[in-house]
């Protein structure tokens, strides 16, 4: 016979007492509130005192400057920007530049890191030595030095725009960066994009369906021919009906530089390469540690089931290793994002360079600008760790741990 447990009565007051007061009970709660009040008062005093003092010294204060014209230009902007835009827009431009270098850097660092880790673990003597040398050399050299190396060494090796290296006459490499044709939307663009989105969604749905069929009924469905048709066949058919979705504008040498086309500036390339290779060395060690932490019996079990080494790694070992890998991996992602502020050394216009640098000295409002910049880095880092926490939680859940 089983009786259902009675729900305990709601004890909100008790809970508050326990959370805030600990063992001290209500006295503890009172102390906590007093402490919070004192902290708040000190904070208020500091801010108001600072305001008064800055005013006395005639140092401009407040965030009104964000609406003023910046009056300087930036050489890589993801949104349209000219010198007559505001400091707020400079802030957004810098933030986007930081984000793009961080995201691209993180993707490459992860890929390179996994490859190097697998190299180090490989039974092939040469591969594992190459992996080892990579890790030991890269992680033991200062990052700033590596950034300057990629920038100055690569710049010095490249020709000037008038003698640029031509790739089939459509793309050009010079010490001004890589110039590629830029797409210009035509009338067929909207249906093309719609069909492409439809194809991606349908392929993902198909994959979910196939997985479910495999896990629930043990049925193997081959989906790649349909996916191929969805992702390539369908858009191709749309193109035939509606015409080309876009044409390309070819870059042309005019005066000093190339006109037309899109350009990837060398500062971006140097910074991304340096950040990705440097962080990859650390990620490689994290991944290696994670894989080694999985009992070798798992590997043996995989091969006794007749799985290849690659399949065993992919299906059995790596998923279990992820639990160990994710937390330190998050650290590396955060480091990469914060290290991107070294961009200022090579003139890449990131947040620190254009906002905490140029804007600061144009306006002189150090306290506001440094506070905003620090706040943004904190926010980016917290967001990154939140995403990684969710991912880590999913990994643990899928392992049933």
């Amino acid at each position, binding site marked *: 016979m089983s009786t259902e447990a009675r729900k305990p009565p709601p004890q909100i007051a008790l809970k508050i007492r326990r959370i805030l007061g600990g063992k001290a009970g209500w006295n503890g709660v009172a102390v906590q509130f007093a402490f919070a009040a004192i902290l708040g008062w000190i904070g208020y005093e*500091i801010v108001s005192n600072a305001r008064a003092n800055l005013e006395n010294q005639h*140092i*401009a204060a407040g965030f009104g400057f964000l609406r003023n014209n910046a009056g300087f*230009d930036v050489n890589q902007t993801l949104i349209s920007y000219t010198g007559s835009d505001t400091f707020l827009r400079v802030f957004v431009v810098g933030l986007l530049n930081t984000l793009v270098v961080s995201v691209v850097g993180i993707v490459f660092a992860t890929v390179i890191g996994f490859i190097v880790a697998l190299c180090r673990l490989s039974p092939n003597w040469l591969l594992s030595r190459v992996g080892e040398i990579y890790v030991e050399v890269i992680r033991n050299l200062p990052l700033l030095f590596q950034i300057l190396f990629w920038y100055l060494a690569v710049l010095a090796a490249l020709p000037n725009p008038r003698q640029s290296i031509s790739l089939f006459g459509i793309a050009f490499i010079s*010490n001004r960066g890589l110039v590629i044709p830029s797409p210009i939307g035509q009338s067929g663009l909207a249906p093309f994009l719609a069909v492409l989105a439809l194809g991606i969604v349908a392929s993902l749905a198909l994959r979910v369906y196939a997985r479910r069929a495999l896990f629930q009924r043990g049925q193997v469905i081959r989906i790649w021919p349909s996916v191929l048709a969805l992702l390539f066949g369908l858009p191709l058919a749309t193109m035939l009906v509606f015409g080309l979705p876009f044409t390309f504008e070819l870059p042309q040498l005019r005066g000093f530089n190339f006109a037309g086309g899109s350009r990837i500036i060398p500062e971006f390339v140097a910074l991304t390469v340096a950040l990705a290779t440097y962080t990859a060395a650390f990620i490689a060690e994290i991944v290696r540690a994670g894989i080694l932490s999985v009992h070798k019996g798992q590997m043996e079990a995989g091969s006794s089931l007749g799985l290849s080494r690659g399949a065993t790694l992919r299906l059995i070992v790596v998923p279990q290793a992820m639990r160990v890998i994710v937390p330190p991996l998050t650290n590396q992602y955060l480091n990469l994002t914060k290290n991107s502020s070294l961009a200022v050394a090579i003139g890449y216009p990131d947040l620190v360079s254009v906002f905490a640098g*140029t804007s*600061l*000295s144009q306006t*002189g409002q150090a306290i506001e600008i*440094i506070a905003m910049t620090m706040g943004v880095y904190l926010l980016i880092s917290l967001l990154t760790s939140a995403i990684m926490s969710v991912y880590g939680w999913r990994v643990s859940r899928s392992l049933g741990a």
Partner: protein
Amino acid sequence: MKRVTLALSLALAAGLTAQAADAQTLKTVKDRGMVSCGVSQGLPGFSSPDDKGNWTGIDVDVCRAIAGAIFNDPTKVKFVPLSAKDRFTALQSGEVDVLSRNTTWTISRDTSLGANFTGVTYYDGQGFMVKKSLKVNSALELNSASVCVQTGTTTEQNLADYFKANNMKYEVIAFATNDETVKAYEAGRCDVFTTDQSGLYANRLKLASPNDHMVLPEIISKEPLGPMVRHGDDQWFDIVKWTLFAMLTAEELGVTSKNIDEKAKLENPELKRVLGSDGNFGEQLGLTKDWVVRIVKTVGNYGEVFDRTVGAGSPLGINRGVNNLWNKGGLQYAPPIR
């Protein structure tokens, strides 16, 4: 992360002290036994350390003159090298007593930074340097060029204005320090290097083959360079301001570091007033009666300083031009000492 430290110390100073920046700079300097002087990180002619670590340059000599007036000893200066971006925060936070760092006097800097310019040590203007091989003869031919510039300067804004006004396109690559900017220019990252014209000549000396580069004739802006002090201390403001005026007055009266002892003996009323045997202007400044004598003995008059640091007697060899005295066709003019 010097910038963050400076900003933090500024925030702390503003937030925690009851009354910041009262009229205490002279007393602080005397107690410390040193003038703390913000200079550049190395701009030949203006402020740069030699191979023994001695600082030289026209901006450096202004600080030495202040130290001479206060302590009668030109070595009592602590030089703090600052990047263009850090300079104002360093002054605001009290890390330096005077900022003598080829800084352009503008209205926004005079009014919103909590600091004042005390005068003009050097009248400059912004120019462009290009490789001779580009075959460019005028700045108006620079459409679509890539331009290297040091960030946090008036230069950056003048550049944007100039290209916009002349309907030309350009790409700007901004670096934190002067050396990085020059290095990128030399590596071919950009076609043009722009800064104050005196700086172009100074930096050209740093290039591997200076003769392959030329300075274009256009001057696109007014760049009066001068020292800065914090708001709210009028006595210190006066001392820094009149130190420069004393150097100019000495040149005007023909007083040099070599002949000053003879000049002091002359029965000329103006010389007696300036050199301190008549009146007590020095004491009213908070200094000594012989303050001008101390200054001139320390660094020489303005003309001597100019000649030694940026002028004919220096590797830069810049003409006096607009920096000559007012009565010799230039702009340098000191109010009378009387």
